[in-house]
Structure formats: C-alpha cells, structure tokens
C-alpha cells in the first residue's frame, strides 16, 4: 500500500461495520426500488422523468 496519509482500507473489523453495512444496503435498495422499479402509479408518475433519464425500464 502506498504511503499516503489516508489509507484506502478500513481498519475496524467486519463485525463492527456489518450492522451499518446491512442497514445502509437495505435502505439504499429499498429507495432505488421505489424510485426506479415500483409499479405504484403515484411513484411512477412522480419519478417519471428521473426514471427515463436514469435509464430505468419504464412504461
């Protein structure tokens, strides 16, 4: 590893970051599903331009 002032790896063990990682992943996936894929009319119509622009399959 190069001798930079900031390391590119995390030094705390996996066990102590697992809970945050799982929460962050689940919350993120839930949000992306709601924004991009959920079939609800309200979500679709509100997110319409973003879905098209982001390249999500739409309609």
């Amino acid at each position, binding site marked *: 590893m190069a001798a930079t002032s900031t390391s590119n790896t995390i030094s705390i063990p996996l066990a102590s970051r697992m809970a945050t990682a799982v929460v*962050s992943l689940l919350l993120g996936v839930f949000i992306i599903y709601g924004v991009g894929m959920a079939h609800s009319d309200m979500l679709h119509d509100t997110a319409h331009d*973003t879905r098209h622009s982001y390249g999500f399959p739409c309609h």
Partner: protein
Amino acid sequence: MLVKYLLATIVAGLFAGILLTPAMYVRNVPLILHAEQFEGEGGHSHESDHAAQGAAATPHEHAEEAGAELPLGRLGNTLLINLVAGAGFALVTGAAALFLGRRITLQNGVYWGLAGFFIFNFAPAFSLAPELPAMPAADLAARQTWWLVTVLLTAGGLYLIVLKDFIWAKIAGIALIVAPHLYGAPEPDNLTSPVPPTLASEFAVSTLATNLFFWAVLGISLGWLLQTYAQSELEV
C-alpha cells in the same frame, strides 16, 4: 452503528441529487417533453398482427398529464425524486465500501463514482438503451428483470476484476459483465416507433453524460464527506 458514516453518505447523496436536477434539465427533460408529443400517435396502427403482445407493446396507455403524481409540479417532483434517488445510490455505494473494507476518500471517490456509473447506467444501457416516452418496448417486467440481473452481474464482475488478483477471477469477471449482453435484453417484436430516431439517439447519449456527471459528483462528495466527518469511526 456508524452514525456519522450513514449521515455523511446520505448528505453526499442529497447533494448529488440536487446537482442532477439542473443537469437533467439541460437535455434530458426537453427531449422527454418533445417525445411525449408523439405519445398516442403511433403504436396502435401496428397492433393487428401482434394482438397477443398488444398490451405490452402499446406505449403508454395511461395519460401522463392526468397522473397520480405528487402535487409539487414537474420540476418539484423530479427534484424530490432525485434527492431520494441520490441518497439511495449513495447508501448502496457506502454499504459496498463497508462490506469490502475499503475507504472512500477524496482521492479515490471519483473511481467509486465511475464504478457506480458503469454498474447502474453504462452496462444496462449497452443492451437496453434509455427509452423515451412513446418508444416501443418489450414487456416491462421482463426488462426490469434483465436490468436488475445485469446490474448484479456487472457489480460482481467489477468486484472480481478490480479487487481480485488472480487471472481467473479477472476472466470470470469479464464473463459476468459480458453474459447479459450475449443473452440479450428483451426487445419488442415491432420496432416501429412514433418517436423520431434522432431524438432517441440524442436521448441515449445525453442521459449517459448526465448520469456520468451525477456519479462523478456523488463519488467525489462521498469521499470528501466520509473523509472529513466519518474518518474517526473507521479506525480502531
């Protein structure tokens, strides 16, 4: 729970979502509005020989204008969704870094952003180009399934290529990334489109450029915020 880490991640996502909104209005939204003028014009004249696929192939059977969207106006809705979406993509990126034991920093943030762009935008768009309203498209559920599988395979492939040193892992990674494109994205039986092809090609390029910008901003701001506010949580 690494609270500072989560908060810094969400703030970075909100920031990228704010900047995504004006970026979308440069090209993408004007092209969407232009394409919507063609909704209802085509798509119905070619249905006779495709009666079975009619429901799937008919673009846009619901009226966009009288929709069920939140009452914030078109710009307000898009800004709200971009804020939420930015946070969502930031959370997934931050989670990936935690699982992998990697630190997102100001120096390497742009590479995390490029990885996100490659996984979520470029790879799916390679076979399933971003669609304008009124364009013909295959069954929605089939396209969504293909999109999701492609995102997962690409993420796995990129992990093998970037973070594993064995040559076989890199070859397997390339195979994972290429596989969904060899399989092929779902296509409509009838490609006749009421939307002029120029609009569609302009849209495909402008959306990729816009999303590249979004991911670059997201990666760099994630790196800066995590490095500035959450560094202490990641050290023993």
